[in-house]
């Protein structure tokens, strides 16, 4: 092939229609006019960064199987009061084992790309993974035996891991200098997670030393909401507006409602947590209303963002994520009813309706949010490891081609049916419905696990991996 004697620039001959670049048949960027190129971290860095979040995701898949098995094998647990040891154990298996593991793994992946930097310390991240891997099963066993001393030991290990995670997130954000709402949500969610763990440990210690003169049930509710709203909702109210535009080619037209949504939730939670702990019904109601307003505002901002999307067809994972967000808003409204003073649904007097709320929040709202994230993140991380180094050298598939969208669609449909049955089963204390709901839930999870196994299969080193 003979080279031309002078620089040549032409538009792409392969685009079906002219883009601004192609209209004149020449690039708008000549050597003289082109801005100074920027540099991205190298591929080796990306490969290294991808390992840690992928390890968290694989751990989360194991916990997803375990928590589902615990639910399916003992569905009557859902008919117990929400403070019953078995219910507390099951809730922690889902929350710490599945939801926190996925969310933390996602943060280790998202934070560097959202902030255009590297994590402050990858070693801290791996230490966190090991502490998390050891501590969570220990905590679940402690809950099963209702051994608060053992819980304190494993809880301390968990707290140490979360502390490293919080430090890592804070240092990463501080180092990159980002001050936008996404960076803020990352730091705030990490801080709330640390506080949740400290509160949990304090409540366990209070069983021995009684240094907190408050109703343990009220403290449990405060602890749960600090974790739920402080960590999960705060995180989602920020990073959603970086990820969803990325996945759907959309743009956030106005960041003000995103900031307002986050702010309302934060102020709401700052009042809600102490109001729940001290059983101040009206104050809790006002603060929960602020949280609900924050969720609605963020939901509206997301709806507005999605209206600008170029990718019209949404993946099953994104659809599940959005459905989970809607259920969370419904669940927040249900929570408002529960804390309404002297309400017939008051969870303080009845004790059981809190479980309807818990199932709605955790399995109805948080599950599809987290599983939707899982269905997007795992294929992408797998693609990064299996195919990223091959880009440009051999044909590589898209990350979405590693999944089975139909399987995911049926998984989330099955899950929605399961939740409907479980909610009715919990509300009516009907064990047959609880069994049917729990096994339907298990079927949905099996479909998700089968899909994820098919994705992870691509990590096996094989010469015929390319499609």
């Amino acid at each position: 092939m003979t080279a031309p004697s002078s620089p040549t620039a032409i538009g792409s001959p392969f685009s079906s229609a002219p883009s601004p670049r192609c209209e004149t048949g020449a690039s708008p960027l000549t050597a003289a006019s082109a801005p100074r190129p920027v540099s991205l971290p190298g591929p080796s860095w990306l490969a290294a960064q991808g390992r840690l979040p992928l390890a968290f995701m694989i751990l989360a898949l194991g916990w997803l199987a375990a928590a589902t098995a615990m639910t399916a094998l003992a569905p009557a647990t859902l008919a117990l009061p929400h403070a019953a040891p078995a219910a507390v154990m099951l809730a922690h298996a889902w929350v710490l084992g599945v939801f926190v593991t996925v969310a933390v793994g996602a943060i280790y992946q998202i934070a560097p790309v959202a902030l255009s930097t590297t994590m402050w310390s990858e070693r801290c991240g791996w230490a966190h993974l090991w502490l998390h891997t050891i501590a969570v099963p220990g905590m679940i066993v402690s809950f099963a035996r209702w051994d608060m001393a053992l819980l304190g030991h494993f809880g301390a290990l968990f707290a140490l891991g979360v502390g490293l995670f919080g430090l890592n997130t804070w240092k990463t954000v501080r180092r990159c200098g980002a001050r936008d709402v996404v960076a803020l949500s990352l730091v705030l969610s990490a801080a709330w997670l640390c506080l949740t763990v400290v509160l949990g440990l304090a409540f366990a210690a209070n069983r021995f030393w009684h240094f907190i003169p408050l109703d343990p049930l009220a403290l449990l509710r405060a602890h749960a909401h600090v974790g739920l709203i402080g960590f999960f909702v705060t995180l989602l109210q920020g990073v959603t507006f970086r990820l969803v535009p990325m996945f759907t080619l959309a743009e956030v037209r106005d960041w003000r409602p995103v900031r307002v949504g986050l702010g309302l939730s934060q102020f709401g939670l700052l009042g809600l947590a102490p109001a729940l702990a001290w059983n101040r019904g009206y104050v809790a109601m006002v603060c929960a209303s602020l949280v609900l307003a924050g969720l609605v505002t963020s939901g509206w901002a997301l709806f507005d963002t999605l209206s600008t999307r170029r990718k019209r067809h949404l993946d099953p994972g994104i659809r599940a994520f959005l459905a989970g967000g809607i259920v969370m808003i419904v669940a927040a409204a249900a929570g408002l009813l529960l804390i309404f003073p002297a309400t017939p649904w008051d969870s303080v007097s009845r004790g059981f309706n809190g479980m309807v709320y818990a199932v709605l929040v955790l399995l109805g709202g948080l599950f599809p949010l987290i599983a939707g994230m899982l269905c997007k993140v795992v294929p992408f991380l797998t693609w990064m490891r299996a195919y990223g180094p091959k880009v440009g050298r051999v044909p590589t598939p898209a990350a979405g081609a590693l999944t089975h969208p139909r399987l995911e669609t049926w998984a989330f449909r099955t899950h929605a049916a399961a939740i409907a049955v479980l909610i009715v089963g919990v509300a009516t204390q009907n064990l047959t419905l609880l069994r049917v709901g729990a096994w339907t839930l298990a079927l949905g999870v099996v479909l998700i696990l089968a899909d994820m196994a098919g994705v992870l299969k691509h990590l096996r080193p094989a010469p015929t991996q390319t499609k």
Partner: protein
Amino acid sequence: MTPSASYETTDAIWRALASILDPEFGISIVDLGLIYSVERSGPDVRVIMTLTTPTCPSGAWICDGARAAVQQLPGVENVRLGLVFEPQWTPQMLSARAQHELGCGAEHGR
């Protein structure tokens, strides 16, 4: 060296770049409008490209792959790849084919 030979050479570079799919959308990076220009001077090739977002998590792989795809072409010795974010990528840079694949073409009312 003839003009047609020059065109074929640059054409091959575009073709090589078009073989790279964006991992999220499964669409060629050329159809996505990520390649701003290709310049060739003898064995030296200069590609100026962008990403859909500066925080694109697969950005480094795409850039590295673009460089590798061009580098393996016959007659190419040096590839200089410039990653720029001005002008910023916008969905208007999608080709008609990409718009159709994403479901946002004229026939979809957008």
